């Protein structure tokens, strides 16, 4: 793809195909191609390779206009991990805890998904594998109560970081969003000098619905950054570009597998290279 030498309407159609098939979405795709055409006219670009490079820089410009400055090695942070069902919250919470453990940071996991079958056991299994303590109640308990106990335990036992794993919930369910608001309030009240970082976990295979998810979760829990998971598949995760362009939500981390090491910092250059690669 994109190997032709000259620049013509068909070339732009091919660029459009690459962006659309990457889930960048029609609106952001149109904006990017519009900017590219302006540059072609202004800078008199004629070489296909030069144009591709120009498009890449346009995308990188978008990413640098909205950066996440998340440092997983930071101490004194409470992470609230949220998102819709099945995106990889629990696995990501475990990966984050593993990273902190390796850095010698005292980290506590909180199993605040009290709804889904065996959700608590799932996080506990990870905790046991990592040698990380997991605060939990029984299934059906009030998630806010678990969060409260989690933050209290962190204070009592001197844990630097806390990672609160929550139940998957659709952004269209008002009662579940209300439950999440309550969990956040409880967490905020128990920070004890730590900083709160709400992370939205998004699945790279998700299409334009990711934008709706981001909009709602930000309103409800003030998610400041996202984790884009399952980038080890064939989905390109182009919604990351639309998220920066239309919602102003940056990607901080990417999930690239089911293993405990498969969590990386989001690097725009790598992302763009994979997009056009």
């Amino acid at each position: 793809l994109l190997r032709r030498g000259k620049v013509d309407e068909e070339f732009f159609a091919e660029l459009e195909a690459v962006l659309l098939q990457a889930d960048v979405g029609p609106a952001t795709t149109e904006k990017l191609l519009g900017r590219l055409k302006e540059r072609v006219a202004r800078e008199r670009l004629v070489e296909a390779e030069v144009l591709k490079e120009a498009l890449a820089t346009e995308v990188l410009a978008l990413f640098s206009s909205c950066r996440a400055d998340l440092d997983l090695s930071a101490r004194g942070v409470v992470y609230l991990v949220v998102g819709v069902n099945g995106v990889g919250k629990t696995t990501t919470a475990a990966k984050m805890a593993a990273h902190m453990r390796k850095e010698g940071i005292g980290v506590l996991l909180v199993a605040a998904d009290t709804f889904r079958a065996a959700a608590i056991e799932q996080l506990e299994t990870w905790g046991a594998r990592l040698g990380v303590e997991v605060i939990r109640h029984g299934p059906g308990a009030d998630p806010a109560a678990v969060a409260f106990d989690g933050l209290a335990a962190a204070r009592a036992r001197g844990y630097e970081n806390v990672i609160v794993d929550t139940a998957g919930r659709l952004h269209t369910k008002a009662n579940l969003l209300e439950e999440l608001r309550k969990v956040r309030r409880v967490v905020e009240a128990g920070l004890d000098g730590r900083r709160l970082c709400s992370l939205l976990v998004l699945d790279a295979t998700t299409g334009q619905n990711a934008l709706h998810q981001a909009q709602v979760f930000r309103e409800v829990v003030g998610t400041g950054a996202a984790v884009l998971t399952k980038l080890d598949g064939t989905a390109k995760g182009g919604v990351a570009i639309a998220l920066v362009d239309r919602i102003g939500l940056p990607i901080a981390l990417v999930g690239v597998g089911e293993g405990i090491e498969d969590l990386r910092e989001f690097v725009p250059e790598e992302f763009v290279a994979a997009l056009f690669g």
Partner: protein
Amino acid sequence: SLSERLQEIFRRLRGKGRLSEADVDAALREVRLAFLEADVNYLVVKDFIARVRARAVGKEILESLTPAQQVIKIVHEELTTIMGRAEAKLDRAAVPPSTVMLVGLQGSGKTTTAGKLGLYLRKQGRGVLLVAADLRRPAAVKQLQVLGEDIGLPVYVGTARDPVAVCREGVAEAGRRGLDYVLLDTAGRLHVDEELMAELEEIKAAVRPVEILLVADAMTGQDAVNVAKTFHERLGLTGAILTKLDSDTRGGAALSIRAVTGAPIKFAGVGEKLEQFEVFHPERIAARILG
């Protein structure tokens, strides 16, 4: 909505008298935009628009008093042709039990769907055994056991370390108990994971399922085509189940999956509870895609 946008386009064009092919193309650009926003795959959309155009660039649109309605009608008919009619029948084996394999990407809803389908069949008076064949994900077996307890269905938990053996044993167990259906809950996997796709082929060869159902998340974007195509090529899908349709996703993945595999989407997951499961209605997804 698409029909409102088309009305607007044709209202603006009306003033110039007779419509031209170029005018129809303007309308088709609007249809294309709606489909892409609805997550229908780029190539599926391209194909679809070509089909609609072939029908629309004819007397019926160019001389119609209601061109917007005519375009919508053609779009609707073409959608219905591709999506087919509601088809929730599960095949039955010549000799019970009938084996159903649930496959798909990580987190798409397979384990929950195994419970839902089991409950659905039990309500129809069938005897069902659930088989916990995901030996990989932490507490996956426990998850299916909890669901089984909730709905009063037996769950087979093997002692073997290998999913192929567990499936074989589970099917044998269902046979011993004289049950009608045995549902295999497999581990989520990438369609590009050679080893894990080969594992599914091994399970298929070992238990000869009458149904191999792709469990896919209704929020899936462009990648739906790659996933469906690969699972279909490797295993021969007999159908699909679309989950999380209780979200506000437009569900274009449904059209993509159907278009590239020809497999019917048999059921829809419409919530987290095991009762939230229904026969898939193609006309409803058409309405969602058209917005």
